[in-house]
C-alpha cells in the first residue's frame, strides 16, 4: 500500500464531498479545485507527471476559472443560498446517491477483475513518450477530438457574432 497515494485519495474524496455540499457556489468550486489538485498529485505518484500537469493546467487552471467567472457574472445572492439549502432537505439526494453507489460498485467490480495492477506506482512516463503514443497508436482519437474542438470553435464564433452588425 502506498500511503502517500492513499492520503491524496482521501483528500480528493473529502474535497469532492465538500464541493457537493457547499451552498455558496464559489466555495464549492474551490473545493473542486482542491480535489483536482489531489487527483493531479495521484497521477504524478502513479508515474504520469505529464497527465498530472495537464490536469492542473486544463481543469484547475482554465475550466474551473471559467466556472468561477460565470458565477461571478450572475452574482448569486442570499435567496439562491436558501434555495440550495432547500435542495438538500428531504429525500432529494436518495436517487442520485443510489445511482452513484451503483456506479461505484461497478467500478470496484471492474478493478477487482482486471489483470492490470491498480494503485501501484509504475515507472514514470515522460512527456516525450506520451507524445509518441498519442501520435502513434492513438492518432485517430487525436484527430477526432480535433474535429470536436473545431466544431466547438465554429459554434462559439457563430453564437458570439454581432446580430445585424457588419462584423
Amino acid at each position: 500500500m502506498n500511503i502517500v497515494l492513499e492520503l491524496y485519495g482521501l483528500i480528493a474524496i473529502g474535497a469532492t464531498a465538500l464541493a457537493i455540499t457547499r451552498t455558496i457556489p464559489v466555495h464549492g468550486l474551490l473545493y473542486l479545485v482542491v480535489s483536482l489538485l489531489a487527483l493531479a498529485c495521484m497521477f504524478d505518484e502513479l508515474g504520469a507527471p505529464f497527465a498530472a500537469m495537464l490536469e492542473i493546467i486544463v481543469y484547475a487552471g482554465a475550466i474551473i476559472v471559467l466556472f468561477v467567472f460565470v458565477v461571478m457574472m450572475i452574482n448569486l445572492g442570499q435567496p439562491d443560498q436558501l434555495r440550495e439549502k432547500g435542495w438538500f432537505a428531504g429525500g432529494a439526494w436518495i436517487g442520485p446517491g443510489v445511482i452513484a453507489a451503483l456506479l461505484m460498485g461497478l467500478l470496484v467490480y471492474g478493478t477487482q477483475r482486471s489483470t492490470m495492477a491498480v494503485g501501484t506506482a509504475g515507472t514514470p512516463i515522460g512527456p516525450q513518450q506520451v507524445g509518441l503514443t498519442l501520435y502513434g497508436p492513438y492518432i485517430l482519437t487525436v484527430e477526432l477530438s480535433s474535429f470536436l474542438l473545431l466544431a466547438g470553435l465554429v459554434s462559439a464564433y457563430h453564437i458570439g457574432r454581432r446580430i445585424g452588425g457588419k462584423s
Partner: protein
Amino acid sequence: MMSIIWPILVIVVTVFGVLGVAAVSTMLERRLLGVFQDRPGPNRVGPFGLFQVIADAMKMLFKQDWIPPFADKPVFLIAPIIGFLAVLLCFGVVPITPIWSVAGNLNVGLLFIFGMLGLGVYSVVLAGWSSNNKYALLGGMRAAAQMISYEVFMGLSVMGVVMAAGSFSIRDIVDAQTNCWFIIPQFLGAVIFFLAGVAETHRLPFDFPEGENEIGAGFHTEYSGMKFGMFYLAEYAGVALSSALVTTLYLGGWHGPLLPPFLWFAIKVFLLICFYILLRAALPRPRYDQLMSFGWKVLLPLSLLNILVTGAVVLLRAGV
C-alpha cells in the same frame, strides 16, 4: 546528512532570495521612475534612500489589517496567499546556475510553471469576488479574461523553444543554448512570450485588473496592511519570475563568457526587470478591448505561425 541539508538550504535561500529581490525591486522601480521622469525619487532614508524598503515594509506590517464586514472572510483571507505561493512555487523549477536549483531537472518543469500560473489567476479572481465590491468584481473579471487569454499565447509561444530543445525540462532548455541563445532563432516567440508575461503579471501598461482611473484599485480595493502587501510582493516576484523565465528560455540562462554563471543570470534578470520598469514609464495604458483583440487577432496567429515554421525547420534539420 549532506543530502538532506543541501536541498533544504537551497529551498530556504531561494525563497528568501526571491522575497529580497521582490522587496528591493519596489525600491528600484521608484528610483528608476525618478530617473526616467527627471526627478530624484525617494532619496531621504539612509544612503541613496536604500532604507526606504525597510520603512515601507514596517509601514505595511503595522498598518491596521482590516477585513470588511461584507466580505466573504475565508476566501478574502486565502486569495493573497494563493497568488504569492503560486509565484514562489514557480521559482522551484527555474535553474539559476548548474548547481543551484530546487527542481530544475523536473522533466515537466515548464508545464509545472504554466500550471502554477493558472492557479495564480484564482488569487486575483477570488480577491475580486470575495471583496463584495463592484470595482473589485470588475477588476477580478478583467483579470480572469486577461490572464487566461494571455496564458494561451504564452504557452504557444514557448512551444517553439520546447521543439528546438526537445524537452520540457528548463535545465535541458538552458543546456541547448550553449552555442546560440534561443532569442536569435526564436525572436518572434521571445517577443510574444515577453508581452504575455507583462499581461500575465498585470503590470503596466497592461494593468487593467487594477486600472486606477477606471475601477479604483481594482481587485485589491478592499485590501489593506500585510494582505495588500502580499499582493504587492507577489506582483514584483512575478516580474522577477517573468524576467527569470525569459532569461532561461531565450537568453541562455547562466551561459556567458568570463563571469561566473550566477553573475550572468543575475545581470540578465536585472536588465529585464529594468526594462519592465522602463515599459511602465514609457507607455500609456491601452483600452481593455484593445488588449483582448490584440491578443486573439495578432498574438494567436503569430504564435501558431511560429510553431509551424519551427516545426518545419526542426523536421528539415532532422532530414525527414
